[in-house]
């Protein structure tokens, strides 16, 4: 009898779609995230092929060499780990604060006030996020580089005659500025989404009780956006912590180093074991943040902000400040979002660096045949077959990844929210987030060794396009899941229940009720993976083969070689494609990456 009851229990458990989703996700994600983790741990204790002579043990044998060197070897540990560690924490924290301040301010202005030019601000604000982060770093150097590195002076020095200080041009300050600006749109999307959908009745109720603006902000608005703030903090902190290219470009002239630059050199150099320990440390920090987040959000009930009732947003009237504030925001935007693009465009037409006379302009880097005297006979990007291949691959990859990550994220968000509080749901919620905490570079390296051979029913995937798809999907799932969970938590259960009572099937409930209500949030769950994929580098760099090369790997190669004209041209191309795609989606569905904040 007990057995039968068990079976029945099980049957009814699996009858609910959200349970099926959760179980499938636990199995698949458990496999795709825990194995990499185990691999990393094993690698920290193993002698690697490049270390055979240094450690004097055969390859593959057990060793404590790396742990000892990283944590307990005086100067070596200090320079390899402790100093970069402190720098990393400082950079990540400050970048986060900056991103949330800028993003939050813009989000509040656009959703909550009657500022002008909302749709312009909203669209353009996304640009820094669309551009690969290191290209912003290149733009920073274009503008503020000083005579320390020599060469042509930056635009700023050229225009004003003032020499920028070293701390301003290189190192901590520009790294924080660039990363803060790069991730501000992220904060904007997450915070703006919540503000947009917030039931204005809550604020109105407070107003009726004669609470002043500050009190309302403190007691009503902030608590409601707090989950979004925390998600943002979490995501941005992890991202900046594992960002490599920005510190590499801006830190190197003054030799400012962070964990990722150390990881890059060790993982790709003679001591991969060090790199894996650093990766592990970064994962541990990420998990700690995740737990902290859960502890904070778990302490109080969530706020249901979308009910069956209609809601209007009452906008703050800026009165006299309306126009000046609009101008201010637009000017800031022009500086951080448009100016870099303009500089890319100009630089892509310049032959000799630093010479902006008309005679020095050339279309060589766009449509040239390629000349051996300039860049090893590389043809201009519009007639360069490898760029066309890269473009096709990038588009294909981003579309497929976004379809997978978006859909899985939507379903997991739904299931997690449905079973909120249950162990299973917590596990899935954490599992979907976990890939985000593994630094991209290490993640790529591990998937390379994992899937180079046949594993059970999974064929050897290395060199195949689908390996890129899997890595991308797993890595970007957190974006989709986060926005989906946020959307679902806002959604009162009564809405779906109404459908259930009417006997509406699950698929129909999903497609006809739930998706349409939170459509813009869900669609952003598709768009974020798309954009991230279009501009991702370190995740894919080890996995691409000649036939699967993508735009960003080409872009980075050009940047590294210093063929900046080609790089600038490709960068412009990426931005144009993503912005165009965003506009297209906007036209077709009314949603966009900024979720149409401000445009409706």
């Amino acid at each position, binding site marked *: 009898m007990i057995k039968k009851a068990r079976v029945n229990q099980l049957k009814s458990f699996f009858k609910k779609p959200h349970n099926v989703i959760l179980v499938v996700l636990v199995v698949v994600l458990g496999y795709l995230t825990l194995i990499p983790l185990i691999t990393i741990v094993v690698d920290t204790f193993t002698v690697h*092929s490049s270390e055979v002579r240094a450690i004097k043990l055969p*390859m593959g044998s057990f060793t404590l060499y790396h742990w000892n060197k990283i944590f307990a070897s005086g100067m070596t540990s200090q320079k390899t780990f402790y100093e970069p560690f402190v720098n990393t924490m400082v950079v990540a924290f400050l970048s986060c604060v900056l991103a949330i301040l800028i993003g939050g301010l813009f989000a509040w202005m656009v959703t909550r006030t009657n500022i002008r030019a909302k749709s312009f601000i909203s669209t353009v604000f996304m640009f820094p996020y669309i551009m690969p982060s290191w290209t912003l770093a290149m733009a920073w150097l274009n503008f503020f580089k000083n*005579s320390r590195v*020599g*060469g042509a002076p930056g635009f700023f020095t050229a225009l004003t005659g003032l020499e920028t200080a070293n701390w301003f041009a290189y190192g901590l300050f520009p790294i924080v500025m660039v990363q803060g600006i790069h991730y501000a749109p992220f904060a904007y999307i997450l915070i703006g989404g919540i503000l947009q959908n917030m039931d204005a009745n809550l604020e109105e109720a407070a107003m009726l009780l004669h609470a002043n603006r500050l009190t309302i902000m403190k007691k009503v608005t902030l608590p409601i956006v707090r989950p979004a703030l925390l998600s943002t903090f979490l995501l941005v902190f992890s991202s900046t912590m594992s960002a490599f290219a920005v510190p590499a470009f801006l830190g190197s002239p003054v030799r400012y180093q962070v964990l990722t630059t150390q990881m890059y050199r060790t993982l790709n150099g*003679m001591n991969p074991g060090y790199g894996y320990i650093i990766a592990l440390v970064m994962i541990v920090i990420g998990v700690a943040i995740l737990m902290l987040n859960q502890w904070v959000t778990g302490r109080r009930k969530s706020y249901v902000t979308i009910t069956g009732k209609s809601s209007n947003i009452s906008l703050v009237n800026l009165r006299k400040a309306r126009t000046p504030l609009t101008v201010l925001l637009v000017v800031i935007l022009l500086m951080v979002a448009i100016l870099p693009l303009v500089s890319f465009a100009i630089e892509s037409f310049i032959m000799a660096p630093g010479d902006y006379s008309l005679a020095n302009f050339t279309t060589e880097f766009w449509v040239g045949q390629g000349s051996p005297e300039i860049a*090893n006979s590389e043809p201009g990007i519009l007639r360069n077959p490898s760029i066309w291949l890269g473009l096709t691959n990038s588009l294909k990859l981003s579309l497929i990844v976004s379809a997978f990550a978006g859909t899985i994220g939507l379903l997991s968000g739904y299931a997690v929210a449905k079973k909120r509080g249950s162990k*299973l749901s917590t596990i899935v919620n954490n599992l979907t987030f976990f890939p985000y905490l593994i630094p991209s570079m290490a993640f790529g390296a591990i998937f390379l060794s994992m899937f*180079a051979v046949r594993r059970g029913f999974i064929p*050897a995937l290395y060199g195949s396009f689908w390996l890129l798809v899997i890595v991308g999907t797993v890595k970007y799932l957190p974006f989709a899941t986060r926005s989906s969970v946020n959307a679902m938590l806002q959604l009162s259960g009564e809405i779906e229940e109404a459908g259930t009572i009417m006997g509406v099937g699950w698929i129909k409930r999903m497609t006809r009720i739930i998706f349409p209500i939170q459509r813009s949030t869900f669609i952003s769950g598709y768009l974020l993976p798309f954009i991230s994929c279009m501009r991702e580098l370190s995740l894919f760099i080890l996995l691409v083969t000649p036939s699967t090369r993508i735009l960003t790997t080409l872009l980075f190669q050009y940047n590294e070689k210093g063929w900046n004209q080609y790089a600038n041209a490709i960068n412009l191309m990426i931005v144009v494609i993503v912005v165009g795609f965003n506009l297209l989606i906007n036209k077709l569905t009314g949603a966009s990456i900024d979720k149409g904040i401000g445009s409706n």
Partner: protein
Amino acid sequence: MKKLLVPLMILLLLPINLFATGSKEAPQAPAAVVEEEISHDELVRRAKEEGKVVVYATSSRIAKAATGFTNLYGIQVESSNLKDFELIEKVSKEARAGAAGPDFVLAQDVGRLVGELIEPGYLYNYVPPVYRDVIPESMQNPLQAFAINKVFIYNDEGVSESPYYNIWQFADPKYKSLLQFKNPFQEGVNANFLTMITSDKWAAKIADAYKSYYGKEIKLTTPNAGYEWIKAIYSNDLIVGTSDTTIAENVGVKGQNAKRELPPVGLFVYSKARYATSKNLALKPAMDMEPFAGFYYSLYLLMATNAKNPNAAKLFIEYLFTAEGFEPWGVDCGTYSANPNNPIQEDIDFPFAVWEPLLVGEEGDFTFENRAEVEEFLNQYIY
């Protein structure tokens, strides 16, 4: 329910070997490839039968050479341009996994090539029979395709004579924040160079150079004069770059010398000297430096043990030593074919025989043996 889940998962996953971590690194040396002597015509016939060849290269010009090769023989080439460490990582991982990899490679960073790819048997040396008597024997094992030099180059606008004559200048506080050099952690050959100068031979020369610059014996705080110089130049605020092209531009842009005491100088590939005309820069090598004017490294041609198209690969290797095959590199200065009959850019360059005595060379064994130590040492001063 939760109790059921865990066993269910394990049941699903365990029996199908999904949990193996893939890091079993103990390599099984592949059976040595037995070479069979065949004529050039026979090689061409067999290569055409294969119809295709896959190459990994650390030089992007391979694409140009591939086009020439395809036009000549009608054999398709799949070439990919990788960074030195990516190539090593990829080839060794692919070989260990038995996945399809390249048929041959054109690669740099000799220490790691020897230690990590040739010794485990993933790659092997093949010298085209027709070139056995042409290529100097010292360049045959492992087979070098060509050498590339990186030398001290300064901005010579309005400067008649090189202000730089001794490497110890860059360690002198009078020349602070001056020398530009790409991050050695970004490119293995740069780290190899720093490793080579810690060898007894070069350390002794560097100690002599110290004496001729300062007029007194060097006092060591590190194992030898090579280490001492590395420590000194980085402590003297050497400017770490990210790309040789960028360094060349930063050094060579005109109009700088008027505004500063000392002309900018960098240690970077000589091939950028061509920018002096094509990009209107001022670049000139400081060739009379004591005890060296820079260093050189080579690109090696190596066959993959599990090549799918071995004959096409051999034919391509052979092709790269012909005048036509070398052309993508030969059109520029700073690259010197191992086939001494291939010409150089005589207007601004010198034969390799002129350069070689001025430069620090590379030794595979020594670098593989000692680079980890030098890297660790460098790491204390570079940041």
